[in-house]
């Protein structure tokens, strides 16, 4: 029992953390934001809950999925989105635009804000980024300047834009997204949406008649005509500025048809009345505006019932995605990997057996949570797990963690634990930074829309990346450990050597077969097996490098130390073909172009090069005696 205690305690801590994080997702309020966040809408080519819309939108503006309310409390994005859609006057006060570029702030004449942190905290960890947050009302006076500057910048190609111009374009996009969302449920020109619908229904027949009469050149009611025209203009603007598709409708075809809220005008004119869904939306909006929380909650339930009447599975499926948002599996897993890493470090300093077992327990628990996250994504989007750069980062980490767990189960020497923790955390961190671009559950471009190849070529090649990174990370840790500590002896060095060798074999198998399968997919869809496209070349580099490692070892050209150095260089090759090729911005595979990441990539490669350089120091100067 004493042996098991550490890992039972560590997993319990992880689960408690999980539970408290889940609780935090639900705002304590009389208004049932959870239920409203579950409402399905259509955006970016797919149906998603408003909760996801809110999180992704806020991520694009504030670089976080939450905001700080007037009492200084961290609040879920859905609260902000609800306000933005129904009472924009409240939302306009919230400082949610992060403007970090000094030149943009100077252009907009925005003041520097004091940090909310105490002086001690500022001295310790810096002022934080909250001084860069501004509200719509603060930016408001400069909207015209922003759009002019963004217009100028958008005429250049991305590579030629300055940092300032890129920042302006980002801000302009965020603002357009913001206004689009604020106009998605109601145009806000009249106080009561329900009243407006009633008026519309009553007036429609009269107005249409006036328009028809005028067209025929007959006598017509001028007031009714003018009123009809102004409604037409109002709804035209409403239609253009709205971003969300809110109204689903069954059609003869297989798929649901989705329309913006402004479609209600056509409903009234063609069918004489607004649909139940619009009516419910109007009631929700009105009850929020009159701050009647009980009515709001009831109206949301009615709205869901109406949406279910259109298509029974809509609300349920959106609910699954909302649960996925609440659980935040990748965030929890990342935290868990850090805990596991700490446990391994403690195990090295003291209590080796027990703490290493605790670390192993944690890693396994994290792997389960990581897996759950991936399963959720597969269920939500209906595709194999790797569809873009973001999901490849999540998956590379997952594959590496599983392999490392297998290693730890076999060798029980804590190397599997420490590499799992390091790779698991860093890939999820990379994924987090990639997710700031927007919705990561995006739809697939036509050529990728093929589950067979996504499930074979993409998965296999990504597992090849996992294995290459695992081997390289073991090499990296081995080099540091042997040079700076006395933990490694001849026997353990040999064990580490065979671990790396085994992983390199695995990596060769996966990257080789994955690359050829990619060629076959290319032959199927583009008509050539191999086109020397940057991404293909990147994959080829990994295969060649793995083959070089194996031949160097088989030919007896390298022993343990050399093998480790080669494996660490595998990290460089693999990170280049994973991210570097996308930075070239050419070719058919250029699906995730990014430029800011270049610095990080260069720093990572430099670190690997340093490790290789260190390993070149003759072993007699190393702290561990390998010979």
């Amino acid at each position: 029992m004493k042996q098991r205690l550490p890992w039972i305690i560590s997993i319990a801590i992880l689960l408690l953390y999980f539970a408290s994080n889940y609780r935090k997702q639900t705002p304590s309020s009389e208004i049932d934001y959870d239920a409203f966040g579950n409402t399905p809408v259509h955006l970016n080519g797919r149906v998603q809950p408003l909760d996801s819309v809110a999180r992704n939108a806020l991520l694009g503006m504030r670089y976080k999925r939450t905001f700080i309310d007037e009492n200084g409390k961290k609040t879920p994005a859905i609260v902000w989105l609800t306000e933005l859609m129904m009472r924009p006057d409240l939302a306009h006060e919230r400082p949610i635009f992060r403007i970090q570029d000094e030149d943009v702030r100077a252009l907009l004449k925005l003041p520097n804000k004091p940090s909310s942190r105490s002086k001690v905290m500022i001295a310790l960890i810096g002022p934080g980024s909250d001084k860069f947050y501004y509200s719509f009302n603060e930016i408001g006076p400069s909207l015209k300047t922003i759009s002019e500057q963004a217009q100028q910048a958008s005429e250049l190609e991305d590579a030629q834009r300055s940092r300032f111009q890129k920042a302006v374009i980002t801000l302009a996009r965020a603002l357009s997204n913001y206004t689009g969302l604020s106009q998605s449920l109601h145009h806000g020109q009249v106080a009561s949406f329900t009243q407006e619908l009633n008026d519309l229904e009553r007036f429609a027949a009269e107005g249409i008649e006036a328009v028809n009469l005028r067209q025929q050149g007959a006598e017509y009611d001028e007031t009714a005509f003018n009123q009809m025209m102004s409604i037409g203009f109002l709804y035209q603007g409403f239609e253009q500025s709205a971003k969300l598709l809110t109204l689903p409708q069954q059609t003869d075809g297989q798929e649901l048809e989705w329309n913006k809220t402004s479609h209600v005008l056509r409903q009234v004119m063609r069918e004489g009345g607004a649909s139940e869904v619009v009516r419910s939306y109007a009631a929700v909006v009105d009850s929020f505006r009159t701050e009647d929380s009980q009515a709001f909650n009831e109206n949301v339930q009615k709205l869901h019932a109406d949406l279910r009447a259109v298509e029974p599975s809509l609300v349920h499926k959106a609910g699954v995605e909302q649960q996925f948002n609440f659980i935040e599996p990748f965030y929890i897993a990342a935290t868990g990997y850090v805990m596991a890493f700490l446990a391994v470090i403690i195990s090295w300093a003291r209590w080796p057996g027990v703490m290493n077992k605790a670390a192993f327990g944690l890693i396994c628990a994290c792997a389960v949570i990581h897996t759950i996250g991936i399963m959720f994504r597969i269920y939500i989007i209906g595709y194999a797990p790797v569809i873009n750069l973001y999901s490849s980062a999540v998956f590379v980490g997952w594959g590496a963690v599983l392999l490392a767990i297998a290693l730890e189960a076999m060798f029980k020497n804590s190397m599997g634990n420490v590499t799992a923790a390091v790779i698991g955390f860093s890939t999820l961190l990379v994924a987090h930074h990639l997710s700031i671009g927007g919705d990561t559950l995006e739809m697939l471009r036509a050529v990728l829309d093929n589950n067979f190849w996504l499930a074979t070529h993409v998965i296999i090649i990504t597992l090849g990346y996992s294995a290459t990174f695992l081997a390289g990370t073991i090499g990296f840790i081995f080099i540091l450990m042997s040079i700076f500590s006395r933990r490694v002896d001849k026997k353990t060095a040999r064990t580490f050597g065979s671990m790396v060798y085994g992983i390199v074999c695995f990596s060769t198998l996966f990257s080789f077969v994955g690359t050829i399968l990619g060629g076959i997919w290319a032959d199927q869809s583009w008509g050539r097996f191999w086109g020397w496209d940057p991404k293909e070349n990147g994959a080829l580099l990994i295969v060649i490098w793995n083959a070089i490692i194996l031949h160097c070892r088989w030919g007896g050209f390298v022993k343990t130390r050399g093998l480790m150095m080669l494996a660490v260089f595998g990290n460089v090759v693999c990170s280049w073909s994973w991210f570097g090729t996308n930075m070239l911005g050419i070719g058919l595979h250029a699906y995730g172009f990014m430029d800011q990441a270049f610095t990080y990539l260069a720093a990572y490669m430099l670190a690997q090069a340093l490790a290789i350089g260190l390993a070149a120091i003759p072993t007699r100067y190393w702290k561990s005696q390998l010979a």
Partner: protein
Amino acid sequence: MKPFIRFFSSFELAISCMALGLVLVFIGTIAQVQLGIHGATELYFYSFFLYWEIPGLGVSIPYFPGGYTLGLLLLINLVTALFVRFRYSWKKTGVLLVHLGVITLLVGELISSMMQDDSAMIIDEGGSANYSEDRQVAELAIIDHSYSKESDRVYAFPHEMLENKQDARHEELPFTVSVNRYMVNAEIRRRDDTTPPSDALIVNQGIGLNTYAIPLPKTGKMDDVNRTTAILTVFDNASGEVEGTWLASLGFPQQRFEFQGKEYSMEIRRKRYYYPFEIKLLDFSHDRYLGTNIPMNFSSDIELTHPERGEQREFLIYMNHPLRYDGLTFFQSGFANEDTTTILQVVSNPGRHLPYISCILIFLGLSVQFGIGLLSFTQKRLKKS
């Protein structure tokens, strides 16, 4: 002989080839940013050496092995190693299979690089086509419009003839076309008073009276076109008398002229491949995801007619679902004219089956090899504990 064979079958050669290959692929990929994928591929991968031109001397010296050299060396290395060094045993089946797979792969890529033909068939909705056009290569076409009442007769001369300034002649043509100047890529400008004096001014017929061409270097970028251009003189076969000099360029309309009472025209056009069958585009559709510009699907509903075989059938070509017919493959590659014109890529590659074989060999080989390794490793560990 022995040291020779030992060298070619050595581990060292294999590792060196792979290491050089690694560098080559890397620098070739970086070069694609400047030269375009096609341009860099020709220069780095489908070549024997990379050359460096010594500035001022006009002499090029090879400084790095190209893709063909490394590929062939690796191929020789693999084959000789299999015959000389390899000791066959059950335990080594995996290695053998992998190496056979790599040999197949290299041979397949060699065949593709030499023999793969790539062209585009462009069809409007309701229209049909019985030829495709090469995107890289041009040809000179002389068209006899008075050949018969129903049809014209076309004499096509490959671009190599233009490049080598060979005279274009045919026994059925009463005249010869000689090449004064050839430009693999050019920019066409309007001729006016400021036009610099050059050989462009010898043009005395057709479009070239108002325009002239400035040579440009060849481009290998995906979206750029090499505007192949030539200055051509037509002279009588019998008398040797000069009829006139024309400027012809890719993208110019056909330029008509009369010779001995018969009507002809000339043009430089993309090289055409004619087929004994015809493809008609019934409908092209391009779906996007609702509320976005992300393409969801492109598809061409086509009808294929082969009169000689009495064949006529419909087929839907879409992404990842090409039409394979007569050794050719037709892929959906693009569209134009507001979704009313389809662009099909037509590929013939006699080596296209080899990668499939190689994939199976390598997968089996690596699985067997590492499977055996893993098995013996776990057995050893079990014995220990």
